């Protein structure tokens, strides 16, 4: 969960979570709605600049993280490039299988390229949010939202126990590995299943213990937390408003120009 630890270290952490959420959501929506190369590139560039230069996250870490979606995007783009149909006139190269053609068309390549660029822009918006805003800040937004409180409570508890169970899983895995638990395919299956069922048991016991601990401190079914007050940053407000206006205008222009 390197993303979360980077978020805590970001210089943009102190800006109110609601501002960052609105900024990244708006940028993401504009990027997807514009569906243009220029806007996607601009979005990605601005977001990376904000994360690395303004937020102070090391570029090496950010690019390592960008590799995860890039692999996904490349794989899905390949799926879009290939097309199947009865009409092969638009295809650059095609193979006939049965009654249909399997091939690559120019429009398919264009669609794949456009979608990949768009996805890259949108992913950098998501990274802007997740690399500057720790989950705990987002939870306090969730509590203020009209959604019932128990959703935020459960989300917070899940988040907390992901780390607890993750640690336990890692320790079990290492113990299994030192005993050649993953030496062959058969033992790998056994080990993975044992690990999972052991975690299930641990999750139940942990729930028991957590409940006892909470009950002895006066828990009656609700978990209340004091959330940190975050000041609204005027500078960031002006910046995001300017960004949204400029990029919307640019998107309209790019739409007309077709880039």
């Amino acid at each position, binding site marked *: 969960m390197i*993303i979360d630890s980077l978020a805590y270290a970001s210089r943009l952490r102190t800006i109110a979570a609601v501002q960052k959420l609105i900024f990244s*959501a708006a940028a*993401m*929506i504009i990027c*997807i709605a514009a*569906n243009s190369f220029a806007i996607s590139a601009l979005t990605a560039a601005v977001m990376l600049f904000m994360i690395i230069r303004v937020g102070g996250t090391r570029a090496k870490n950010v690019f390592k993280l960008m590799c995860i*979606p890039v*692999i996904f*995007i*490349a*794989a*899905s783009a*390949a*799926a879009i*490039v*290939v*097309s199947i*149909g*009865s009409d092969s006139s638009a295809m650059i*190269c*095609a*193979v006939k299988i049965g009654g249909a053609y*399997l*091939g690559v068309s120019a*429009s398919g390549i264009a*669609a794949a390229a456009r*979608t990949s660029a768009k*996805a*890259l822009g949108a*992913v950098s918006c*998501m990274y802007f*949010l*997740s690399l500057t805003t720790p*989950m705990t800040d*987002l939870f306090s937004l969730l509590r203020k939202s009209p959604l*019932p409180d*128990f959703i935020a*409570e*459960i*989300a917070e*508890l*899940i988040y907390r*126990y*992901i780390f*607890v*169970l993750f640690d336990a899983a890692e320790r079990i895995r290492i113990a299994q590995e030192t005993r050649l638990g993953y030496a062959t395919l058969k033992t*790998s*299956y056994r080990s*993975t299943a044992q690990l*999972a069922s052991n*975690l*299930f048991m641990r999750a*139940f016991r942990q*729930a*028991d213990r957590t*409940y006892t601990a*909470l009950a002895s401190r006066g*828990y*009656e*079914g609700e978990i209340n937390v004091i959330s940190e007050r975050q000041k609204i940053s005027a500078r960031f407000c002006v910046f995001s408003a300017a960004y949204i206006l400029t990029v919307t205008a640019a998107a309209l222009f790019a739409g007309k120009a077709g880039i």
Partner: protein
Amino acid sequence: MFLANKKTKLSVAALSTLLLLPATYASAMHIMEGYLPLPHCVAWGAVCIPFLIFGGIGMQKQMRGEGKVKILLALSGAFVFILSSLKIPSVTGSCSHPTGTGLGAILFGPSVMSILGIIVLLFQALLLAHGGLTTLGANTFSMAIAGPFVSFGIFKLMKKLKAPSGLAVFLAATIGDLFTYCVTSAQLALAFPDQGFFASLIKFMGIFAPTQLPIAMAEGLLSVIIFNILEKNCRTELTALGVIKKEA
């Protein structure tokens, strides 16, 4: 198929590379951030809402009785998250993860899974960059609603038919996984119809089949082994969840 001329050979070579690329996309079927047009994002989100409300009401009712249920549900959510991050052992050494939703649906019920699922998917997007925020609706529908409901239905049906629990769990997890993959393919085909929805659907299903079929089988197998161990060692917990009946 005749490989008569040079051009055809070249086409075949190019196409097979393209068809092999998605094989690296072996992780569970998340649709990436930014891949769907906005109207699709909104529509899939809207489709999820009734299921989520239904799941939320069910959860609230369960929690009213006892304060402990809430904590148990949270731990279940964390368990599903970790389950989906485990590696499925495979011969090729490719890195693939189970969806975990089949086993989750059997253990915790499908309507609870929809709420736990959307929270887990949100965490996967923000903490691991798997999936996305605008595609959260579409991913929730395929992985946290469609898959779990099918898994649960098959599990109950097999129990009614008095099938051995191993077979019931295997079929529930495998078919639930396959259904998730079909729904994701349909979602992608709707977004990229190319030469018609059905041709596109066949294309996406065909491309993801070589990775998804073995993964589904592997996840089914893994779920059975997990379930067997649970049945042996965690009878009290499983009875509390209503998965198995109390022994007379």
